[in-house]
């Protein structure tokens, strides 16, 4: 029974990491209407910019995380403005945009490896005793992950519902030509979306690295299809669905690791992906006209 509660706790932590990454992917998909296959590289950018901030620039960890997250957001905007936006403006179909982001993942992941090396790195976090909360037991890093995720998701919710930018994003997500017709500067909103998506990917990457302790350039990329599974489970382009999907996938992955074997825990996410595509391809919260 103890094991059950422990696994439930770890499932929530994995779900928190996933929800950050899944919301970032889903937000960008909703606005631009194509999947970013290079997203795994953005997770890696988050990890390594933070690592540089802590080890290279000697920043305290919290400041290094902020630096890493913002730098990933800027990278995301630069990549969009230089490479993706010209293709979109030319009217390249989503079909070819997928190939372009797939190629981009190869470019960016190898660039990261060339800059930061192939070995495993880890953040300098002082070791401390696990914290017991009722039947659960967490490391302080895991508690921080859940806290960061909860705060970030509330902030994203407020951004989307209370600000003009957030409302413009939702308008573009519903109907981009109509949003443009009502006078929304769609180029500006698209760039802000890429910035936000990059920041969330960076934060997802950093929290993933906290959770796995050691990380290297491809750590985020092996996690990519688990993020896809969460996004599709929640309904592609749906922010709140992505959060829900992430928590479900996080729990499934951890319980599969407990019941089957930790070597095959990610396969459980694939099983969920397959079941969703066979039984409810529109996801938990369907998007009209998107599936």
């Amino acid at each position, binding site marked *: 029974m103890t094991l059950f509660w422990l696994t439930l706790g770890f499932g929530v932590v994995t779900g928190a990491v996933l929800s950050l990454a899944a919301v970032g992917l889903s937000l960008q998909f909703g606005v631009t209407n*194509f*999947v970013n*296959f290079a997203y795994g590289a953005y997770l890696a950018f988050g990890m390594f910019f933070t690592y540089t901030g802590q080890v290279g620039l000697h920043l305290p960890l919290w400041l290094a995380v902020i630096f890493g997250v913002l730098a990933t957001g800027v990278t995301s905007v630069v990549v969009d403005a230089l*490479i993706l936006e*010209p*293709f*979109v*403006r030319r*009217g*390249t*179909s*989503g*079909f*070819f945009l*997928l*190939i*372009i982001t*797939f*190629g*981009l*993942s*190869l*470019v960016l992941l*190898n*660039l990261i*490896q*060339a800059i930061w090396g*192939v070995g495993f790195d880890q953040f300098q976090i002082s070791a401390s005793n696990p914290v017991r909360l009722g039947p659960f037991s967490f490391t302080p890093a895991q508690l921080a992950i859940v806290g960061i995720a909860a705060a970030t998701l509330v902030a994203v919710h407020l951004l989307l519902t209370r600000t003009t930018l957030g409302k413009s994003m939702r308008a573009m997500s519903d109907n981009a*030509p109509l949003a*443009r017709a009502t006078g929304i500067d*769609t*180029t500006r909103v698209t760039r802000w979306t890429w910035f936000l998506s990059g920041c969330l990917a960076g934060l997802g990457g950093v929290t993933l690295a906290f959770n796995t302790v050691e990380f290297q350039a491809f750590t985020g*990329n*092996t996690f*990519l*299809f688990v993020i*896809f*599974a969460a996004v*599709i489970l929640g309904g*592609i382009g749906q922010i709140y669905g992505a959060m829900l999907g992430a928590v479900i996938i996080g729990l499934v992955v951890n319980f599969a690791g407990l019941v089957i074997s930790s*070597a*095959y825990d*990610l*396969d459980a996410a*694939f099983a969920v*992906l*397959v079941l969703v*595509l*066979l039984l409810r*391809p529109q996801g938990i919260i369907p998007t009209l006209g998107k*599936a």
Partner: protein
Amino acid sequence: MGVVLGYVATLGVYFCVYNIFAFGLNIQFGYAGILDFTVITFMAMGGYMAGVAALGPSQPGSGIYYILGLSLPWPVALLVGAAAAGALGYLVGLIALRRLRSDYLAIVTLAAGSIVLGIVSNSNSLFDGSEGLVGVPQPMNGVLKLTPNAYTVFFLGLCAVIMVICWLVANRIYRSPLGRTMRAIREDLDVAEAYGKRTFRIRMTAMVIGCVIVGIGGVLTIWFVTALAPAGWGTSETFVVWAALIVGGRGNNLGAVVGSFLVAVLFNEATRFIPAISSLPNLIPEVRNMSIGALVILTLWFRPQGVVAERKARFFEVPLRTGSLEPVPMVPAPATGSGAAQ
């Protein structure tokens, strides 16, 4: 002299094998518009199954474990490998091709590839885990008793014959009613469906035929290298095949050949012979992968149809007096009344 000949023959073998991969992907992507982002998984499946079909039973004391071990003759092993790749393609297609959206399809293929890679790497009893298969017997090597370089030349001949057969098959499919339907589905799935075409079945046919051809290329790969390990078939290898097809020109097999020569031979294989810098052993593969990714993006920008463009069939069209169905451009077009496009 023998060394130079062996080197040229080695590049020739890679050329033939990548041609076969590109033909397989061309049937899936170029003909039917299926985004198969895990081509290399089917190559691995073909190679592994042909390997375990040709190898003798796994010896308990050797520390190398694998399934089957049937000691079959090489032509039968080739069929086993091709069939296994086709069967895996069918399974992936069952999930991926149900949905209309191309992004779901791409996600499922990518996820399936990473799952197969994970299972093969983690399971020691399947194909000896991350160590991979070694010592796979080469066709007729025991009978011919040639020097290694001379055998490479013989093997090049075998590859060339198989490649030409694959080319003829792929071209035959292109001209057949089946190939025409595949291209109709690629252009517009809904229209093809409205004309009563069974789009799911036809896309599945393209998927399976493509996987079988890629699997044949995988069998040739494991024969040539005599070994195959999970490190040899990552996502970047899939992208080499994609780059070959995009650069050469998708939808036509001549383009696939040109692309395989430009990308897989000139660009990819030739750079393997550049000596590595000892302090940065990974720099050359990293730069190569980045360049291949950039090559695809640049090709799609400057020459989206590839070096050899597909010759599209032209029909007499009644000029339509309706607006353009193209996606709305980012810059608002001046209102012109009736659309003059097409």
